[in-house]
């Protein structure tokens, strides 16, 4: 049985196109110091440091924990670097939690980041693998055909993605840390934006951001040493499946369904739409909201888009299950941190510390991340209640 652990501190940088004023190390340290301040702690209170980011080729720093040791106060401590594709921010949170849940450590610092202004993600994702089919499209080109298949199967109207893109930017306008600040966005403006990878328009895509997100995770016995309410970690799960295999369900991957079932069982979630107060779900392209609503069991197969169109996932429309109140990946995307931001924002909600994008009275929330060809999944359930 896992030891009980909780998030006791969260720190994020402001997400923006370019943070030219800080180095990569400076960016991480900014988030780490904020998380420690939030937890009322210093570097000396930390037993181990766990970092995560997307491929090293983005910034061109090989195995960056080696360079980041000093900036994160890790000298003389264990330091681990997780890498599981786009889900890495979530996976890193889970690996960090396991340091405490295993009883091995009492309090750990975890930080994820991407400094996209010092990198070229499209290039790094498109470098040829020997003996493998060459993908020269980046993520949008990869996911567009899968989205089209969802539209065909579900019969969803063409503007569901447009609605998601608008809704998440309106959420983002409530979050001062969000990269895109588009309080005046309308569905008409999204629809008018250029088509990038049909059916994904420019404004239906995530931005490229610089940023870092950090959390302090503590054993139950030390939670009271931090001043703010904790977010208890009630369930943790990861799943992986291959990128391609005969008969693979790419619209609603089995790995996502299995991961959700696992984490729900741990946290006692039987009806996700009712049992969660909100969710932070990895939606880098607009149409992934209805697709994940179904994959995660918030809606029946083929009906996810109806929740979106009814406003059920919108804070501004008083929806019953707001998704991505922080603005989500569509508003900020420092790739390696994006998953952890979902996990951290879920924790902020149940700590009652989400500012203008707080869901009133939120007790239980889902954090979700996915990566690769929608084949790697990481999820956690956090709650104001110990359980």
């Amino acid at each position, binding site marked *: 049985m896992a030891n009980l652990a909780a998030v006791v501190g969260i720190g994020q940088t402001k997400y923006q196109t370019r943070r030219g004023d800080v180095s990569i190390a400076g960016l991480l340290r900014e988030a780490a110091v904020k998380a420690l301040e939030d937890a009322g702690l210093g570097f000396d209170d930390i037993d181990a440091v766990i970092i995560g980011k997307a491929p090293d080729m983005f910034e061109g720093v090989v195995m960056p924990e080696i360079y980041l040791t000093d900036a994160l106060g890790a000298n003389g401590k264990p330091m681990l670097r997780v890498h599981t594709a786009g889900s890495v921010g979530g996976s890193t949170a889970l690996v960090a939690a396991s340091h405490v849940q295993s009883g091995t450590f009492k309090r750990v610092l975890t930080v994820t980041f991407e400094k996209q202004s010092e990198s070229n993600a499209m290039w790094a994702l498109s470098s040829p693998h020997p*003996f493998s089919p060459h993908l020269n499209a980046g993520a949008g080109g990869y996911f567009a055909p899968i989205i089209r298949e969802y539209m065909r199967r579900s019969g969803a109207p063409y503007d569901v993605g447009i609605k998601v893109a608008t809704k998440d930017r309106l959420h983002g306008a409530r979050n001062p840390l969000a990269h895109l600040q588009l309080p005046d966005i309308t569905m008409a403006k999204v629809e008018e934006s250029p088509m990038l990878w049909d059916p994904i328009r420019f404004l239906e895509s995530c931005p490229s951001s610089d940023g870092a997100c950090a959390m302090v995770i503590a054993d139950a016995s030390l939670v009271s040493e931090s001043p703010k309410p904790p977010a208890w970690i009630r369930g943790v799960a990861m799943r992986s499946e291959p990128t391609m295999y005969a008969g693979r369900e790419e619209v609603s991957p089995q790995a996502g369904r299995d991961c959700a079932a696992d984490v729900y069982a741990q946290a006692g979630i039987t009806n996700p739409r009712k049992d969660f107060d909100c969710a932070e779900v990895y939606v880098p392209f607009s149409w992934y909201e209805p697709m994940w609503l179904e994959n995660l069991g918030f809606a029946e197969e083929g009906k996810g888009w109806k929740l979106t169109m009814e406003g059920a996932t919108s804070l501004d429309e008083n929806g019953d299950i707001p998704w991505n109140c922080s603005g989500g990946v569509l508003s900020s995307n420092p790739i390696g941190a994006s998953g952890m931001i979902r996990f951290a924002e879920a924790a902020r909600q149940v700590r009652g510390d989400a500012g203008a994008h707080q869901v009133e009275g939120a007790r239980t929330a889902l954090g979700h991340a996915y990566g690769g060809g929608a084949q790697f999944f990481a999820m956690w359930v956090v709650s104001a209640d110990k359980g």
Partner: protein
Amino acid sequence: MKDIAIVSFAQSDCVRNAGAKNEVELIMPVIKSALGAAGLSTAQDVDFTCSGSCDYQQGAAFAFVLGVDALGAVPPIKESHVEMDAAWALYEAILKIRMGHADSALVYGFGKSSPGELPTVLSQQLDPYYLAPLWVDTVSLAAMQARMMLDQGVMEEADMAAVVARSRRNALANNPHAQLKGEVAVEQLLAEETWVSPLRKHDCCPVSDGASAMVLCTVEKAREWGKPYAVISGIDHRIETHNLGARDLTRSVSTEQAAAVAGVSDGAIEVAEIYAPYSHQEIILTRALGLGSETVVNPSGGVLAGNLMMASGLSRIGEVAQRIINGDIKRGLAHATSGPCLQHNLVTVLEAA
């Protein structure tokens, strides 16, 4: 905390160039072999899988994604990855077992270093603003460390050559997977020219392609499977400052710290497998680990006999575990390292049941 057992280990031959073999083809034989020795057939038969690799070796992002193709991950599996030596993947798997979310795990590491110039590639581990643009390669940094040791009189060049001679001899006697092996005299080695002074070519580990894999589980599960096993009685890792000027390069403080936490000195160490990519680093590490003449160091030849970058750390642990599983020894330690001049070190103590 639960006692954790290693039940099987497999490693490929260390070869200078695996040619047209891709990562999946490097991984599959060792996974099949490690699973088979544990009486299992696919990754479906364990509760968790974790791997270690580095994209920069092959020169394309997401090496580990292709690795998943070697696992038979249909239906989906619980799987994770560290961009580190697979010894740290083992560490992640141990945490997963300790927290009760898995009773068994498959761990593997792989590296295909042949497509690039490994020492130069690894120069990009350095601070990206002040050091990496200088392209200081790992051999040059290690040479600086060796020079400091010679200058301080903590070793002589003959001590370095003795490490190499023993590595070659042990590899010849005990290690069918070794890339470099043979009988060579210290005098012969010292007669060779220096490469990056004071290092001679033979003071540096070779560049190798290959993979290794391991199956671990709770002691209860190992008994249920009816397999002999080695118990992990202690494991810890520590990192040091990246600022080489702020470290005493003739010592390895992080190894000393990890050894203390892992409990190295709680009993006699019969065998130590040490990840020392350069001959002088074995001297630093045996001192940091507090090893004396009663310990057989690197019976496999260590990484001077073949260095599967990203798998070598796991292989050190596997080498010791296999000796315990075979009943040859009762207690040993394994060491893994990462970063320039031994910046990050992991120590594992293994014991017979």
